């Protein structure tokens, strides 16, 4: 069988390097790489046994898995092990889609385009690696490989306070990833796993006593949680988003936050059931806090990007809640929500960027009534906002519906918190739309034109997916559902 995953990794790596050295033609190379990547991901889907139809049968283990010895010492067995299951497939698709959309959207980036596109590709390469890696070292390697390009993207192409933002981003996420690494190492050594492979850890860690499991889980939760980000370790996010260039914001919100969720599911929830169980109250508390905090803070934001950033905190809080429910339904909802949020927040950051490019400001009170000037952009803003506040027929609805159904099933009336917060979410999006899209024109420069084709195309890709999976969520959900949810006794 074709080593498809390694092939994708190699092609992405080669493409990334080529982009770095492609000079002014970098964007063409990047586009080609992204298109090839998307095609390869398509192949991956086609060859995945759980797709397209969910026939009730679970696909056990990991598909497309490859394993080669890497570092073998008497006390440390590290392999190059990769593989996908339904959960990672969804994230891989998200990676491919966002990469393509970002490359297209940033088409005319003229400040060191080679480095810019190279770093964008590198980020996506790292994310892809994180989603396929099934070995602690490999996982951590890719995890870090995401951090560095993002640091440079923010620090070099960012806004006026970019240095501060990049530093803050780096400190927070790096400290978290250190805690994560120690947690993962402790997971290996305390459980006595025979190797650093996921399967070995999975086999041995579940037999650990509840107390060490709890310690390990909390450490891992912190490590992954900062990426989520969980309140009160979230303040890096708004700053990073606001200062980052649009492309980086898209990847940051669309992919980097998902790394935390994916990592938590794969490396903590699935392998440490007792620890997870003991830590559930903590997760609930953090999730509810994040949901409320993110939403309430969104209300008070003037900067469009900051608003979207805080709403991300809110949405990721719902994801955390869904994970914390300890049910396969909740997990499915969490994964689906993350995909939805990836696409929608990507779209929202793109429109924020376009608003900035077109009107020279993202300050909500300073720009308004833009609809007659820029109908296409307004439509995109509307689609993004509506999807974000969970309107049916767009991707946010089925995802949130599943999450809330699962929450109700597990927690009962507690679901009223996230449900009630939906009203606040709707409030800040509607208020934003009222001020920016409608009303009399304010702060519109005379030369304002509707978005250029490439920005429109970039957003269009995401809109297409927003609608596609909003109308036909089964296409995606069946893939997730086909994976045996390993950590839960109910299945």
């Amino acid at each position: 069988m074709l080593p498809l995953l390694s092939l994708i990794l190699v092609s992405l790596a080669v493409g990334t390097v080529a982009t770095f050295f492609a000079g002014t033609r970098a964007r063409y190379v990047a586009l080609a790489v992204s298109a090839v990547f998307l095609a390869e991901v398509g192949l991956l889907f086609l060859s995945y046994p759980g797709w397209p139809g969910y026939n009730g049968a679970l696909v056990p283990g990991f598909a497309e898995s490859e394993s080669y010895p890497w570092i073998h010492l008497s006390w440390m067995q590290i392999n190059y092990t990769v593989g996908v299951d339904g959960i990672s497939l969804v994230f891989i698709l998200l990676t491919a889609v966002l990469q393509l959309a970002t490359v297209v959207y940033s088409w005319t980036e003229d400040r060191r385009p080679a480095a810019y596109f190279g770093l964008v590709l590198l980020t996506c390469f790292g994310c892809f690696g994180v989603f396929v890696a099934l070995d602690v070292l490999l996982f951590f390697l890719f995890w870090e490989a995401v951090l560095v390009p993002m640091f440079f993207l923010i620090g070099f192409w960012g806004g006026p306070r970019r240095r501060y933002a990049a530093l803050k981003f780096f400190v927070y996420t790096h400290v978290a990833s250190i805690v994560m690494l120690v947690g993962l190492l402790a997971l290996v050594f305390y459980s006595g796993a025979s190797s650093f492979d996921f399967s070995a850890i999975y086999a041995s860690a579940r037999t650990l006593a509840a107390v060490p499991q709890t310690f390990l889980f909390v450490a891992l939760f912190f490590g992954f949680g900062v990426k989520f980000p969980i309140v009160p370790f979230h303040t890096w996010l708004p700053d990073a988003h606001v200062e980052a260039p649009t492309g980086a914001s898209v990847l940051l919100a669309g992919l980097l936050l998902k790394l935390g969720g994916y990592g938590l599911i794969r490396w903590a929830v699935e392998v440490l059931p007792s620890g997870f169980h003991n830590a559930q109250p903590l997760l609930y508390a953090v999730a509810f806090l994040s949901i409320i905090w993110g939403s309430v803070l969104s209300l008070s934001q003037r900067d469009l990007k900051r608003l979207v950033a805080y709403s991300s905190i809110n949405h990721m809080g719902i994801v955390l809640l869904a994970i914390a429910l300890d049910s396969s339904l909740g997990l499915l909802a969490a994964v689906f929500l993350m995909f939805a949020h990836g696409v929608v927040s990507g779209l929202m950051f793109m429109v924020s960027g376009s608003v900035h490019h077109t009107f020279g400001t993202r300050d909500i009170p300073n720009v308004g009534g833009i609809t007659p000037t820029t109908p296409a952009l307004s439509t995109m803003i509307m689609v993004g906002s509506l999807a974000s506040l969970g309107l049916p027929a767009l991707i946010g609805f089925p995802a949130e519906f599943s999450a809330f159904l699962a929450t109700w099933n597990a927690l009962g009336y507690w679901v009223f918190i996230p449900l009630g917060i939906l009203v606040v979410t709707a409030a800040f999006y509607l208020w934003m739309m009222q001020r920016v899209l409608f009303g009399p024109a304010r702060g519109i420069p005379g030369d304002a034109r509707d978005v250029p084709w490439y920005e429109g195309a970039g957003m269009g890709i995401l809109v297409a997916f927003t609608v596609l999976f909003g109308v036909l969520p089964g296409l995606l959900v069946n893939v997730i559902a086909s994976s045996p949810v390993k950590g839960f006794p109910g299945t």
Partner: protein
Amino acid sequence: MDLQSFAGPFVPEIVLLAATLLVFLLDVVRVRDNEIVGAVALGSVVLALLLVLADLGFAPLAVLATVPSSSIDASVTGAPLYSFTSLGLVFQGLFLLAALLVCLASLSRPKDERGAPIFYGLLLLATLGMVLVAIASDLIFLLLAIELVSVPTYLLVAYSRRDARALEAAMKFYIIGALSTTLSFFGASLLYGAYGTTNLHALATAEAAAGTAGYPVLVLLGYGFLIAGLAFKATLVPFHAWAVDVYDGAPTDVTAFLAGGSKKVGLFAFFLVFLAPILFVRTMASGSPFVTGSVAVGPVLQITLAFLAVVTMTLGNVLALLQKEMKRMLAYSSISQAGYMLIGIAVGTAPALAGATLQILAHVLMKTGAFLVVGAVAALGVGPLIDDYKGLGQKRPLLGVAFGLMLLSLAGVPLTVGFVSKFVLFSAAVQAKGYFVWLAVAGLLNSALSVFYYARVLKVLFFDVAEPRALATGAVVGGSEPEILPVGGLGYGRAAAIALVAVVVVVLGVYPQPVLGAIQNAAQHFVNLGG
């Protein structure tokens, strides 16, 4: 003539000694050409390295093996001064690697008024001392071997007699070094007084045998003096202050040798001196007013060393953050790296020793390479400040990339050897469980901190725009004659050394298995022997 039957197991040492003598002889006969003398030195170092590798069992070199495989890792009986352990041989290889890199780069040295033989002679002498350290199994032998490293390096720092900065550095180096030597010997005398032996293994055995009837205060004081004395060489905080000034003031190639080579001597000395008591001495009469009953010297040493490790890496990093000069920043980074390496002995398990050894190997490569680059860049007329490096990566992309790789490796970025070594080291600390997990956390947090100053240099290298005055390609500033060296002003030797480092840093970062496997086996044997 059969070398082996003539020299016994000491062939690498003999080769180095012979080369040293030959080099000084060349001075006498007034052959002072840098290339010729350098080639002799380089050749001897390469030959010694090959011999060591052969002794380690590197198959393609089997014909060169000088140490009978039966004597490697053989148990230590009686009270010999030396023993061939595979970890010792590994360290011989590391020391020779550092010497090799410096010799290689020095082939591109500008001519100087004193001629090459003195330089290479001292270098070889110090290398000989390092190689002897690696096989020491007697405390006094070890300390004298360290002195054989120290004394030539004092002179190497002071070698260009007119440079006031270098002489100031030599003065500090000498005073602090001599003081530390004194402390070491004083500590050794106390240990000798307690058990009547200076063999490291015998000392630990005697301590263990004495148990609660031993001399805890005397022994602990002895170890205390030894820690202080050896910490000078290993640049542990607060015994580090000399290192920054000396690294800064010394000629850059000498700095490369000091940071990359001789400093590791101190760390290996820690391995040799402290592993045995850590492994063996688990119980002893209390020497502490706080604790009644018996107390174990091994864990006490571990905690002390762990404390020193954390302090060293933290302060090294914090101070590196504030530096504006490239060499001083690298000096502090070198100090903090010593803290990581000390984790290995503080944890005291075979995996940890292996991790620390790999970290030392990585550091030999990265730090030697980095200082060689700094020397090369200085030769191109770039100033000593980090800001003077602006735009280097754009004007000299290959040099910039090589330097960048070394910095990334120092920062522990994946796919470089610096990452693998830290990963193995910290994994080992976690694997040892208990409070060592916190050592790993401290180490990792520190490596996070360290990223800042490396990233700043990277930013300066690649993102900042060069100032117009810098980078007159090939012009040797301050040299007696404007001499344009090949390879863009670097010279073949230096370029080769830098390239070698860059390549190895990446290769070992991607696939460390062969080297790491060998180190792991060596460390395991070392622990099995009991140090």
